[in-house]
């Protein structure tokens, strides 16, 4: 790899993302009930999300809707940052 070339972003927890970040959902590692509900709301594997606020509860935009997610949820969602 040439010196100074950008590295591919690494997957991380959604809870570690900051406000303004964009990412693609890789995996839902939260509880089964919660994962089921998230998929119904459109936050599923492969979905694109934008982080609006990253305080105690995280606010994310997904498929045109805004969701508030508690830390227990965001800690279990793996994402690939795109910005």
């Amino acid at each position, binding site marked *: 790899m040439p010196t100074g070339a950008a590295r591919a972003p690494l997957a991380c927890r959604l809870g570690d993302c900051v406000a303004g970040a964009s990412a693609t959902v890789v995996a839902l590692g939260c509880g089964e009930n919660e994962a089921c509900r998230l998929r119904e709301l459109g936050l599923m594997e492969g979905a694109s999300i934008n982080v609006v606020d990253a305080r105690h509860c995280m606010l994310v935009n997904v498929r045109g809707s*805004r969701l*508030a997610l508690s830390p227990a949820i965001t800690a279990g969602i793996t994402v690939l940052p795109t910005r």
Partner: protein
Amino acid sequence: MAAPSAPRIGAPPPNDASTRRIRVALVGNPNTGKSTLFNALTGMRQRVGNFAGVTVERVEGAMRGPNGEKVTIVDLPGCYALSPASPDEEIALGVMRGTAGEPMPDVVVVVADALHLERNLYLVSQVLELGLPTVVALNQVDAAADAGVDVDAVALIHELGAPVIPTIATRGEGLDVLRRAMVTVLDLPRPTRPFTLSSELTDAVAPLYDTLVRHGARPAVAAHDALRLLAVPTLETWYGDSRGAIAPMVDEARIAVAATGANPRSLEAELRYGWSSGVVARTVVNHNEGARTGSDRIDAVVLHRVWGPVLFIAVMALVFQGIFTWSQPLMTGVEWAIGQLGDTVGSLLPDGDLRGLLVDGVIGGVGSVLVFLPQIAMLFLFIGILEDSGYMARAAYLMDRLMRRVGLHGKSFIPMISGFACAVPAIMATRTIEERKDRLATIMVVPLMSCSARLPVYTLLIGAFVPPVAVLGGLFSLQGVTMLLMYLLGTVTALAVAAVFKRTLLRGPVRPMILEMPAYRWPNLRTTLQNVWHRAQMFLRRAGTVILSCSVLLWALATYPRTDVPAGTTPDKAHEIRLEHSALGHIGKVIEPVVRPLGYDWKIGVSIAASFAAREVFVSTMGTIYGVGEADETSVALRDRLRSEVNPRTGALRYTPLIALGLMVFYVYALMCISTVAVTVREAGGGRIGWNWAIIQFVYMLGLAYFAALAVYQGGRLLGFQ
């Protein structure tokens, strides 16, 4: 595997269309304007009740079709998908499947939000797959247009294979076309699954599909469930005894689907959202994609780290002010009307038991309920406005952190705040909390929030025993600070007791928050007022029956057995003597040894006993005992009598500030409201389970009240504050 298509349905048009009856189920995501649409279609022709066997509200309305058909519309609770996450969503699904104790609807109207079409189409695809005649009401097209989102409704019709009617429910636009579509859809081919499965996946779920059909599911429902069951953690109760046979087939289907390379848990979501995103790409143009919306700008303030909580406190203060102050003229008016009615009836009847029963028992009892109605209505008006505007979700978000520290959900905050007005509607408001243990914990502590019924007690005792002196640099009065302390005491205790419940009887993790922040919008006044009317009806029907019965009983206990009084006794003194020798008076004397450690005598004991049905009865009972006639909390005469009352044995003052403080603390904690008990029974599950929780609530609050008052009085005496 595509769901099999059914032949054309619909009965041949009758000769007289006006005799035709059509049942319509109205379903949709929350925040789509579904209730506004329902109210616009049905007007005031609505009935509110409960679905069979559950406490979930059932709202049914009527309208006439374009040719006079009798159309009944059932407004189902909002749901994001046909998978129940709460009792409300479970009943919505049950109605669609015909397992909720009532027949399946003839037509389903799915209300979809034009501004959030991609997510709404998830539910639309599920409803289409069930194979019932379906109409899509594409609502809030005006809000979508304002946001730069154009939806091609004609193209959408072709994509969905079902009628799509653009509507603006707040303005009544599109309703005539919708009404017609509800009828004509019966003559159209039934909808089918809008996407296709590969042959591999079809084969993988085929055994599960066959099992579901064998256990009674319609083919369309079996096809829908075969996909859905792969994703859900547990089978729902509506499968009944078939769960034992279905569960292993679900496991096998998951293995078979995984063998094709697909994720069985996310397969349904991938298929539905894959389809809906394609539909949106072909039918929706967003001219402002990526731009900041109005809701974004408002949230920048409402959810600001500093201004968010400040604004929240200001909103709550406004709600409080409205509930306590703006409803007062109406409450005074209701009180006056009740008084006039009592006087009129009393003047028409001769003296005697019948007059006493009707005036004091029935009219007085019903009046004590009706006087709350303006406050209840004001509370629901505010709650309705906050919910419809989209702010309530933000409030739950802001309070989530605090509530989780005591083991509660952020959604618990709103019912608790509502408890400052009245615990009855506050307990009913806990239905939005999905997790049963969180809901029960909230129900258990809501009555600790000092409701408006405690205000007369506080006002009387503070007015009598707390001097009106300025404190804290002259900014506040001691009386005001004392009142505030009573409210804070109840609030802090409620949070502490909730923490105890969540670590003991209702142990369990707090369900993580997954909450949609809806777009802000102007509340629809008509819808809000209709909801207020529905809540008022339910309050009157449920609380009024119980409290009326108790008021009649209290009247009887205070009247019998009768006692002769010496001639020449003043009417008020005569009343006091009769009360002392009545059954209620005897109860007071029996109670006296129990309340003496708190500093109370039989008179306060009687007043406490009488106020177990409704707290404010304490004031009027004390007025009766002390012979000041029609007393209320502002009666100077009653305050003077309390201050000057002397113990005939010791010659010392009977009532002191310490006793008054202990009495207020008693009323902060004690559950003295039959209406609250009745609502707790229903909302905690009804039947024996509901009664168990209501008893636990009553006992712990009574224990808290007694020992707290005891600690105040005896502790104060030890410290020399006699």
